[in-house]
């Protein structure tokens, strides 16, 4: 199985990841190679095997539903690319 240039463009769009037009073919080739490596897993019969999501099969720990964080908006926004009146700015979404 291999990925075409169109597949790469589609995946890149899903990931909101800009790929230069001249690099698309190159990514298609590289990713097809990696995909071929991944399909080696097909040789193993895994019917009935419980998927392992966590190395220690730990469950998500819960904490009390209590406020533990203080308001640090100004502190966090000092590293933001663009803010105004305490808000993060992005290009206009609705006209």
């Amino acid at each position, binding site marked *: 199985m291999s*990925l075409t240039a169109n*597949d*790469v463009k589609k*995946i*890149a769009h*899903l*990931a*909101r*990841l*800009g*790929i*230069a037009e001249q690099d698309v073919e190159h*990514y298609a080739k*590289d*990713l097809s*190679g*990696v*995909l071929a*490596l*991944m*399909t*080696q*897993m*097909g*040789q*193993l019969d*895994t019917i009935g*095997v*419980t*998927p*392992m*999501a*966590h*190395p*220690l099969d*730990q469950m*998500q*720990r819960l*904490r009390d539903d209590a406020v533990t964080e203080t308001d*640090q908006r100004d*502190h*966090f926004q*000092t*590293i*933001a*690319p*663009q803010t105004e009146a305490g808000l*993060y700015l*992005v*290009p*206009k*979404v609705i006209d």
Partner: protein
Amino acid sequence: MHKLTLTELAAGLRSKAFSSVELTQHFLDRTHQHHDLNAFITVSADSALQQAQAADQLLATGNAGPLAGIPIAQKDIFCTLGTKTSCGSKMLDNFIAPYDATVVEHFNSAGAVMLGKLNMDEFAMGSSNENSFYGPVRNPWATDCVPGGSSGGSAAAVAARLAPAVTGTDTGGSIRQPAALCGITGLKPTYGRVSRYGMIAYASSLDQGGPMARSAEDAALLLQVMAGFDPKDSTSVDQTVPDYSTSLNDSLQGLKIGLPKQFFSAELDSQMAATIQAAIAEYQKLGAEVKEVDMPNLQLAIPAYYVIASAECSSNLSRYDGVRFGYRCQNPADLTDLYTRSRGEAFGAEVKRRILMGTYALSAGYYDAYYLKAQQVRRLISDDFKRALSEVDVLMGPVTPNTAFNIGEKTSDPIQMYLEDIYTIAINLAGLPAMSIPAGFIDGKPVGLHVIGNYFSEAKLLNVGHRYQQVTDWHLQVPKGFE
């Protein structure tokens, strides 16, 4: 001063043979002198000297801990309040973290001095440190060679004596492989042993921070500070941290060593095999017993890893959107353009490959075939380890298929690079602790011995490493020009 162990440095500080300020200045000078290794992304000289002054005052009170006043350096994946944390990426080239990682906090409260932040592959994705936005790191043993990765700056800094000990992180071998290629001691702890809070995420079910030092004895002191339960990390394990230094000298009489058949296949380089066998023979002299173990599913570790790691990476790295922090492209036309171009312009090729691969593996219609299948393979690999470690105390083998390779040698084919981690990756899938210790040289380049233990057996691994280092001097060798 750069030749002393952590214990000797601590004693020197207490006997006032030197002050922390003098010690810190000495390592800052070395870092400056050898800056062409490119081991550091940021040298934080001013804050280091301030910390050293504070440590000298603390030492004078007589209440200082073992690492007080000792200079260390952090892999640039750990968030540091007020000092740039780039994770080796253009995306975070302007990022000053608003908080300290738990690991950094631990070092700060121990009174350690931070010399700076170490170079690494971008977002810890790589096995050669060539994927860093800040350029490759050079291996002190052969400066035209890579130091390994992703903790390449960490390994090079310790090998070149630019820092007595440092931190690293290991998602698929990123502590052990560079430790092996640079001839130092590196320990990847059990998943959950060291807090991941403030450690920039790559593949969250695999990432684990750990110590990189010259000897197991030094690594034990470092892990003592790093390990522990952290309520801020949802996968941190609430288990008592033992004293890692007290068991270092335990006898290895009767230690059962398992040698996975799959680690010693015909494909293993003959010189590598001979070096590893010689190290194992040394253990037999120390009273250990050796037996072969079979781990049939190991061969599928690389495919399973690249599905799981890529999937988790694509999810984790979706936070870099050019809105709240990090790189933002110039003059975005609209919101989609802002996301797409900011990410496209700031991520390097390997990071892009993994985001694309992970997005594909998680996309509708492919989830079962890739992600679910990989998690099932992960279970089978983990079961192989469980079975083997029920019969023996530790597993041993090579860390890498080869010694340090030339810069540029493996960059054209990503799969060639992935195969670098063929012996290390399975351990992350299982979540086990494992260590690389210096075990010899091939053509002047270091070889690492891989020691893998059961969950939370870090003390045993350090004991196994330390006893070997009492009867060998591989870990005491210094690369030429760095004496």
